[in-house]
């Protein structure tokens, strides 16, 4: 780290020697830095852009800049908002659990409801597709497109993709008393 310091000193001497430097006394430098906010307000008032809200924002902006040297304001605000969100989320989760509610996520609730709905159907079929995928559900409409109610909702399957349909929960038909066999759809 010794060499770069020498380099900077050399460069500064060069700038001084060739009159590129524009130094001012220490107290003036301090005054310049401390008058930044005051003069900004003066400029904004002159152009008619100053308002109470702007004043409040400027106060926060300069206060944060002064307090959090090294942390840009945007990052500071984002960090703060993240911290608030995480804290409030955690507090909400803990308070919900402690209140004894049997909390379930909406997705779990939805699946449970779909399964319950599925239980209302007389038939639950196992549909095997040509690509090897097996789907369990109640066929609610047939034709070129099969509509199947599954635990995750109603899905539509093109007829030509279905290899076989096999009933899983077979109820005996009142007339024959025989279970319904698996029927290859393609036939």
């Amino acid at each position, binding site marked *: 780290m010794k060499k770069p310091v020498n380099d900077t000193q050399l460069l500064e001497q060069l700038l001084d*020697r060739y*009159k590129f*430097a524009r*130094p001012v006394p220490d107290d003036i*430098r301090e005054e*310049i830095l401390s008058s930044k906010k005051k003069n*900004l307000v003066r*400029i904004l008032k002159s152009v008619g852009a100053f308002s109470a809200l702007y004043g409040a924002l400027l106060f926060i902006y300069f206060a944060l800049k002064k307090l959090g040297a090294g942390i840009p*304001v945007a990052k500071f605000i984002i960090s703060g908002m993240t911290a608030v969100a995480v804290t409030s989320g955690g507090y909400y989760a803990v308070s919900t659990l402690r209140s004894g509610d049997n909390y379930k996520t909406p997705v779990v609730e939805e699946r449970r409801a779909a399964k319950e709905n599925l239980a209302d159907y007389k038939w639950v079929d196992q549909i095997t597709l040509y690509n090897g995928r097996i789907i369990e559900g109640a066929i609610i409409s047939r034709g070129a497109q099969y509509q199947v109610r599954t635990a995750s909702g109603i899905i539509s399957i093109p007829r030509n993709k279905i290899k076989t349909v096999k009933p899983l929960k077979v109820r005996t038909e009142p007339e024959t008393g025989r279970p319904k066999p698996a029927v290859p759809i393609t036939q």
Partner: protein
Amino acid sequence: MLLSKKEREFRKSYSDYYPMILNSIYYRVKNMEDAEDICHEVFVTYYRKFDEVRDPRSWLIGAMKFCISNFYRKREGSCPASVDIADMEDDVHLAFENGFRDIRIIIHDAIEDTGNYQDEKERILFDLIAVNHYTYDQAAEHLGMTRRQAAYKYQQVSRRILDHLKERGITKIEDLL
């Protein structure tokens, strides 16, 4: 957003360039009240013409020179000739400092070469420390970085400028001092 885009960008530009501009004005007029008045005029004009400005730095420096000359022209009892025109214009091609005009041009080109700065922040940092003699702490506080970051960035810029000078044939800086 609570502020318009213009207001946000103006505040950022002001925040970046204010110390450099006011410092340069003070260096010439040697009076803080006058310097603040001129600086005020520069930034008010900048706000009004904000949408037309493409390069804030060049525009502000140009406006600063114009406002300083206007200030002396308007001021009663002040002789415009008392202002050092060469220094005020800061034109290295016209200035002749101790017979080293060519060297000044090379140094000026090295300082002004945007390739020596990674971003505008580095350029402002260099101006504050090398040209205006601000301390690392003052420059770091102004630019919202740590002292360590400011020192590191300043050293990097200085090295790039010295390399630029070496490429132009100035291999030993000591010979020029």
